[in-house]
């Protein structure tokens, strides 16, 4: 085989390997180091460097350097004349004798001369400077041939594209980071707004101070007990905070009436779910259907609720959560015409109204959460903070909860066996 052919085969092997290295998505620094090895090894070049162009700083920063010594400049400043000449030249090797005319070269001439640099290749990709390659003398000490320059050009294309892709990726990552930060800011603004609204709603009703905030917290607990994700739990809390936003338009004297309101006043008050929906509808709520929760939080499973008298399956799930949280708060706080009910009675009420007013799976989830807290399995004290210690630790409440839960959701091993026994008997 002629030596020329042998050289070609060797160089093409390097070119193929370079192509593979660049598409392999390895560590960028390693890819560049490998690239420099492949160019040097393809042609037998003693020294060299690959630099990336920093557009804003107008600098060529070395990414890989071989054999150029510790004092070789790692960062080279370019002038606009250098940039212009690079772009005119495009991606093709410049002999050092010609490169010496470039302004940046003159600054470092002594340094370059000392390392016996012979070729300089600006890396221009899609009319943009992305980097440069510096190459020293060949091991044969012969000048570079035309075909070797062509090989260098082809390999330079690959390296240029790799740098360009890396730049694009970095830009995309930066944008993604900016977007994430903006999203976080918007999220916190949204929550502050929601809380401010809840406080405004509660201000209007002096007897139910803190009602919206508590309904928000109880809704949050229910969502947590259902095993929902972080965003959905947050959504449920927001739905709770804002469920009575429609009350902002109801006359204060109706809301604060220290007696049971009459039919006319009641009709006025009962508009608040619809009004709430109208207020919330134009706002984009990221996690859940907050307007629907406001509209349907006074609906009942048996169809006797308002405003639309929806039945069980017609009621949005989020509204069912808020309904339970809302009623639970109404039962456990003092009202002008009614003192708060003892915890045991509230549990009875919830059980009695399961499947009638409340969704049974929500009642069991909520009561199970309460029981776990009372048994010390859940140490977050969510209920105790909202209801007070004395109220939560009323005598017999733990047994009451156990009994109720067992009746509503017989899932303990004991009841399971009993149920299986009945099933077995019925088979015979």
């Amino acid at each position, binding site marked *: 085989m002629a030596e020329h052919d*042998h050289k070609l085969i060797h160089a093409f092997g390097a070119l193929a390997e370079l192509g593979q290295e660049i598409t392999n998505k390895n560590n960028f620094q390693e890819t560049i180091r490998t690239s420099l090895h*492949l160019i040097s*090894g393809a042609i037998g070049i003693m020294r060299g460097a690959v630099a990336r162009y920093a557009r804003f700083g107008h600098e060529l920063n070395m990414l890989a350097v071989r054999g150029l010594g510790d004092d070789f400049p790692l960062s080279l400043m370019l002038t606009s004349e250098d940039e212009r000449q690079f772009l005119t030249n495009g991606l093709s090797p410049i002999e050092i004798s010609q490169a010496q005319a470039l302004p940046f070269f003159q600054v470092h001439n002594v340094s370059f001369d000392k390392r016996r640099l012979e070729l300089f290749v600006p890396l221009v990709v899609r009319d943009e400077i992305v980097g440069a390659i510096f190459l020293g003398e060949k091991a044969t000490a012969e000048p570079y041939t035309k075909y070797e320059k062509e090989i260098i050009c082809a390999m330079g294309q690959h390296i240029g594209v790799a740098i360009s892709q890396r730049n694009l990726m970095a830009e995309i990552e930066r944008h993604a980071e900016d977007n994430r930060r903006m999203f976080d800011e918007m999220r916190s603004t949204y929550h502050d707004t929601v809380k401010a609204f809840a406080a405004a709603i509660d201000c209007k009703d002096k007897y139910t101070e803190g009602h919206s905030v508590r309904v928000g917290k109880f809704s949050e607990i229910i969502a947590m007990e259902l095993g929902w994700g972080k965003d959905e739990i947050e959504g449920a809390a927001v739905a709770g905070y804002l469920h009575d936003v429609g009350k902002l338009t109801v006359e204060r004297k109706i809301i604060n009436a220290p007696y049971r309101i009459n039919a006319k006043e009641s009709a006025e008050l009962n508009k608040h779910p619809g009004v709430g929906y109208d207020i919330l509808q134009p706002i984009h709520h990221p996690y859940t259907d907050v307007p629907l929760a406001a509209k349907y939080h006074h609906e009942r499973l048996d169809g006797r609720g308002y405003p639309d008298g929806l039945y069980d399956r017609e009621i949005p799930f989020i509204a069912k959560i808020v309904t339970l949280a809302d009623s639970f708060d109404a039962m456990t706080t003092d009202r002008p015409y009614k003192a708060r009910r003892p915890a045991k009675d509230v549990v009875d009420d919830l059980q009695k109204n399961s499947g009638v007013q409340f969704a049974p799976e929500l009642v069991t989830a909520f009561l199970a959460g309460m029981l776990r807290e009372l048994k010390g399995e859940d140490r977050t004290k969510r209920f105790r903070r909202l209801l007070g210690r004395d109220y939560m630790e009323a005598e017999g409440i733990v047994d009451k909860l156990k009994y109720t839960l067992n009746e509503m959701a017989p899932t303990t091993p004991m009841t399971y066996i009993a149920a299986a026994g009945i099933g077995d008997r019925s088979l015979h």
Partner: protein
Amino acid sequence: MITHSEPVTSAQPVTEKSVIRAGDYLNKLSGEQIEYECKRQLEAGCKELVVNFAETELVNSIGISILLGIIDAASSNGATVVFSDVNETTVELFEMLGLSKHVTIADSAPQLTKIWQNMIIS
């Protein structure tokens, strides 16, 4: 992967002559380790660096580049480089790319190999 010589005689300093096995590592980025080791030996005063190719079937472009790095480091430290146990194809490649201009390509006579093998610690 990397081995260095034991003193041939008690008078010879440890780093006077080092033998490095090229193996397969030479052809990957990890081959840079071999280069670092050679540089370490050179800086410690090694005057003759022997690179053994007995376990190297082929040398690719990365391998060539690493060998050039070793040659460059040796010449700036005033040390000589010997390539031993090189197969025929690889010798041709070294000649073609000019590496043989800078190194002594040792005859891979069995006798010589034996001497070197005795010097190598695995």
